[in-house]
């Protein structure tokens, strides 16, 4: 059965669900951002996994190599990683401001503060 050959994709699914779960259930805003990161990492692994070609070598022009792995997903993922980094940076900056404004970064406490006022 293909199960073990598809090991990468199982990891992708696991990471995706773990990340998603963390985003939804954790109250701490930093943890949410971490969850988001894990979620995005799963996508990176997904893309990179699909670029591997059986018997292919690294996608760098070399003498004597005939089969190369697909370089395009790597490029796409670099872009996505950059986007991820920017998102994380923005998220963390927002958290710093929220901490200054509310004094806490737990979202249930924030909500409690809001519903009082």
């Amino acid at each position, binding site marked *: 059965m293909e199960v073990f050959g598809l090991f990468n994709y199982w990891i992708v699914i696991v990471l995706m669900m773990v990340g998603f779960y963390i985003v939804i259930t954790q109250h701490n805003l930093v943890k949410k951002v971490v969850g*988001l990161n894990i979620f995005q990492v799963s996508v990176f692994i*997904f893309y990179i996994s*699909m670029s591997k070609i059986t018997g292919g070598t690294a996608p760098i022009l070399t003498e004597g190599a005939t089969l190369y792995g697909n370089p*395009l997903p790597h490029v796409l993922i670099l872009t996505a990683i950059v986007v991820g980094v*920017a998102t994380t940076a923005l998220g963390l900056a927002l*958290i710093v*401001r929220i901490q200054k404004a509310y004094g806490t970064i737990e979202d249930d406490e924030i909500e409690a503060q809001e519903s009082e006022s």
Partner: protein
Amino acid sequence: MIQAHLPALQVIIPLIAAPFCLLIRRSDLAWAFSLLVTWCTFAIALILLLQVNETGTISYPMGDWSAPYGIEYKVDLLSAFVLVIVSGIGSVVMPYARLSIEREIPWPRIYLFYTMYLLCLCGLLGIAITGDVFNLFVFLEVSSLSSYVLIALGKDRRALTAAFRYLIMGTIGATFYVIGVGLMYMMTGSLNMADLAKLMPLVAETRTIQAAIAFLIIGLGLKLALFPLHLWLPNAYTYAPTVVTIFLAATATKVAVYAFLRIIFTVFGNVPVLQKEFMTDFLMFLAIVAMFAGSFVAIYQTNIKRMLAYSSIAQIGYMVLGISFISVAGLTGGIIHIFNHAVVKGALFMAVGCIFIKMGSVYIEDLAGAGKRMPVTMASFVICGLGLIGVPLTVGFISKWYLILAALDKGLWPIAAAIVGSSLLAVIYVWRVIEVAYFQPAPEGAETRSEAPMTMLAPMWFLTLASVYFGVDATRTINIAETAAAYLLKVIQ
């Protein structure tokens, strides 16, 4: 010579202008600069629209790398229309923004606002013009990230949590979209929309592509605030600075609707994605729930911005409903509503901004006597409110007409009744504001008549008059929408 590179310039001009804006520390210069840049993009968009109308779809390979290997910018009638809408709204908002932003953002930071605005504009224009699905993701994220920042600039501290929530949900949406793109790439090996359209029928029945469709629809659904993925919208629109609300309400979700149309009808154009039985019903169901739930919740709001935000959710329901009919009339209704809602909602939020700058509040109860104190603003609010309801001679009537027509064409008269019913709900929430503004006497010591400044009134009235003009003579916009719809449905090539 420049003419040939217009598609690229459409995106590059605001993109490069943004870091320049960062260097301009002075707020009024930053404003003037962004005004100029926005008007430039509007001019380019208009030229592109005229060109496409005459000669047909424009194809522009970036860096001369031809498709499907290179990134291709494809301007067809629908893209050009959306480009004009986005840059047009931007051009009208910029004159308005000068005084409104000064009231809401501290002076030393205003140039940062304009920087982010230019990036957002660039992102939105890029989504509309690109012909590559991954490029769409990049621009989607550019516009989304800059809108998170824009929203977070609001005065109220809840703007921060609203922006954060939008960030989380938006990123999940974009990531879903990227997963969908990856799955499509896995099966077809291409990222170019036209190329994907050719290759898709061969692989359409695989589980991978079906998963891709699901991820794409959910991802874009999050971005366009389709019920029940709309939870980020009310807070984001309510607590953002008014100019941000105007701009985003009139453009961001519409561009996501455009992306949705592109994926469904262009990328999957040769594969009947939505025609699978339950898909249209499912979308129709979600759209109708959005129409009713959005209007219903709007009725109970005390904050006007929040009320209009929920109204936007309902209006997006109309657009998706039009799409779910999968007929030329339905798509025409959906596409024309993109334009109509942009104009009407833009003007309504501008009116709210004028009220805020003069009366200092956005709560309905504080509007007592506004009819006498700010007659010009309130008149605009009334006219655009009628546009929301869909009274004839306004732009909203045209959209309703086509949507009901599409429903009746398909024999779905309960849906037509639903459209009519939710319009009546809009009467109620528009009415609440009008009643307070015109029927309640102004509070003590506030009798004097003081209108908003001219730079804010003029853009608002420009949009209001546009909403009446295109409601009386809708032939031009309908022709564009109908041709675009026919083209999407492959009725004409």
